[in-house]
């Protein structure tokens, strides 16, 4: 599997050391700013709860009891932001909640502006202040969204650790996907039935060796070269309709799969419905499973099925320079796609 799952650097880890040091410094100062904003939230929240009337006067609002209650509620919210952020100052998502709060504050203040009973001058000042803080919030959230090497990841929440724990908890990777392939049913069935074809488009499989007409030996390979192997047998085989298989008892990986074929309407070819399931009994290889599939296991398998369609319709898996299995790299002359198809 090319690209390298889990490592933070694209293109094989050739990032320069001083770049790494620089971006660590950036992350540290981003977190410090987040903490400062959190404490600011807490301070403001306390003021809003304990002295709403004074605060209202300060920002130019007539402090009726309704207004004071709103201020107290906002105070509670501010403290909530602050605590959330302090619990995890590196989290961009938590800091984004502050931005939500700023938007809320701004809309409340602008509603207040509409009323002539309020002091517009002070209100304008308060709005300017909120905008200033909001700008800081947005800037810092963006900074925190960048990971260690200064790139914005497509899904910053999906760190290696979270995937492993998620997969270990769920312990199973289940994928159902239906696609239409513009080839006759018999051709699609025959291609899939020869399991030795599967690694041509299933990126996580290194090889499938057919032992006899029911049994096969499967080998999956992770990006760092670690392998997992198991034996499987065909459970059902109806030519042109359905194939089902599963790993044998006692295998390290519990794997079941089924594929159903149906002629698509008009001249669209064949509808293929695939169900795959990978499981690691007793959590033993939960982490290994995560390694096999990369950051987004279900997505990986869905991409593989997309590749199946490409192989059937165009003869090869279509790659681009910018698509090495979830990592966004783009320079011409990255490792050729054909490497992985051996």
């Amino acid at each position, binding site marked *: 599997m090319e690209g390298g799952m889990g490592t933070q650097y694209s293109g094989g880890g050739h990032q320069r050391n001083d770049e790494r040091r620089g971006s660590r410094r950036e992350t540290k100062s981003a977190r410090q700013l987040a903490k400062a904003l959190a404490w600011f939230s807490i301070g403001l929240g306390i003021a809003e709860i304990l002295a709403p009337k004074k605060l209202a006067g300060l920002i130019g609002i007539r402090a009726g009891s309704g207004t004071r209650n709103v201020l107290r509620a906002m105070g509670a919210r501010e403290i909530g932001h602050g605590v959330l952020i302090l619990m995890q100052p590196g989290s961009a998502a938590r800091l984004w909640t502050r931005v939500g709060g700023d938007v809320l504050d701004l809309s409340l203040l602008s509603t207040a502006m509409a009323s002539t009973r309020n002091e517009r001058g002070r209100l304008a000042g308060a709005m300017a202040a909120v905008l200033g803080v909001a700008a800081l919030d947005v800037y810092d959230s963006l900074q925190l969204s960048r990971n260690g090497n200064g*790139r914005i990841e497509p899904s910053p929440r999906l760190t290696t650790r979270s995937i492993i724990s998620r997969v270990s908890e769920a312990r199973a990777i289940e994928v159902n996907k239906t696609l239409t392939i*513009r080839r006759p049913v018999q051709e699609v069935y025959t291609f899939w039935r020869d399991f030795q074809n599967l690694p041509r488009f299933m990126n996580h499989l290194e090889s499938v060796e057919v032992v006899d007409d029911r049994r096969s030996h499967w080998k999956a390979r992770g990006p760092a070269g670690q392998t997992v192997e198991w034996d499987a047998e065909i459970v059902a085989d109806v030519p042109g309709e359905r194939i089902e298989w599963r790993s044998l008892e006692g295998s390290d990986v519990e794997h079941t799969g089924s594929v159903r074929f149906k002629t698509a309407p008009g001249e669209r070819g064949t509808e293929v419905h695939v169900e795959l399931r990978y499981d690691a009994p007793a959590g033993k290889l939960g982490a290994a499973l995560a390694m096999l599939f990369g950051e987004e296991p279900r997505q990986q398998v869905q991409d593989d099925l*997309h590749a199946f369609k490409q192989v059937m*319709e165009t003869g090869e898996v279509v790659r*681009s*320079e*910018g698509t090495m299995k979830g990592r*966004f790299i783009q320079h*011409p002359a990255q490792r050729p796609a054909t490497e992985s198809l051996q």
Partner: protein
Amino acid sequence: MKATCWRGRKKVRVENVPDPEILNANDAIVRITSTAICGSDLHLYNGFVPSMRSGDILGHEFMGEVVEVGKSVNNLKVGDRVVVPFPIACGNCTPCLNGMYSLCENSNPNAWMAEKLWGHSPCGIFGYSHLLGGYPGGQAEYARVPFADVGPLKVPEELSDEQVLMLADIFPTGYMGAEMCDIKPGDVIAVWGAGPVGQFAIASAYMLGAERVIAIDRFPYRLNMAKEKSGADTLNYEEVNVLEALKEMTGGRGPDGCIDAVGMEAHGHGPIYAYDRAKQAVRMETDRPIALREAITACRNGGTVSVMGVYGGFIDKFPMGSVMNRSLTIRAGQCHVQRYLQPLLDRIQKGEIDPSFVITHRMKLDDAAEGYDTFLKKQDECMKVVLTA
């Protein structure tokens, strides 16, 4: 090789990058002789398209000479001079076989991203973000062209680069915009946006038999070009009320076909424009549909609105009531360039049109950054910038 790399909002830089290599057996490598900057490149330049990475190579309108072919390529050989269409299409999936090349199901390796945003994925496109495949673009010295048997069009010696380069994108795009209006004799077509695509939509509408074409823009030089080169009537929306003017020019009916050649960065006036800009600034609305709203409202009952302007995400305040209650048809799409290449080349060869009329600025590839800036700011009466190696 040199390539124009995206380096953030409003920042492009021509840099040295590795040359492309054959990755799939269906690939060809093209040495690029001419390449252009597109209005939709400006959306990338202005930071409106998600999934761009610093360093991505831009450009999807290019042509040149084939210098290498993969082992499965049959229709091209080294030395052929070709124009390369901007959608990448395999030629074998159902949409490709039905002529809908920009819907190719196999050419976007990052289909999962586009599916999340749009429900299903369209084709991959050269140099247009990772959402659409992450393919390096053609504002460079070389490009890898996938499915080389399906896309590239061989062009004859006697036509210059400038005469055929526009076949890569904007001429077919404008043509398809006009074609989607289903023009019948007597029809009046209104085109919002007199930029390069709009110019071709206008010219194509006349080619397809429109009685009258009305160009709508705010830049006098663009309106003049539409009038002088295609004979269109013009409306400057900063000087007249477009809806009223269109009614007057069509006997009160409204145009039979309305083409949106503006897209997501539309400019307008008044509170609704301020609203759109504000919402876009806080990313609560991804696109500004001012031109689209107007095209819909202006269209005659039962008419067709043809959308070629690029949109990416979601728009606000869409006049659905006007659409539904008045039997409007909305047609849209990224141009299926491959199916127009030969027919439009034929028209060029017959002398019906010389697409080079839109070219106003000719620069070296090294000056790409300046080209983007001039094009964006519409300085110096800029209409189309062509870069040569």
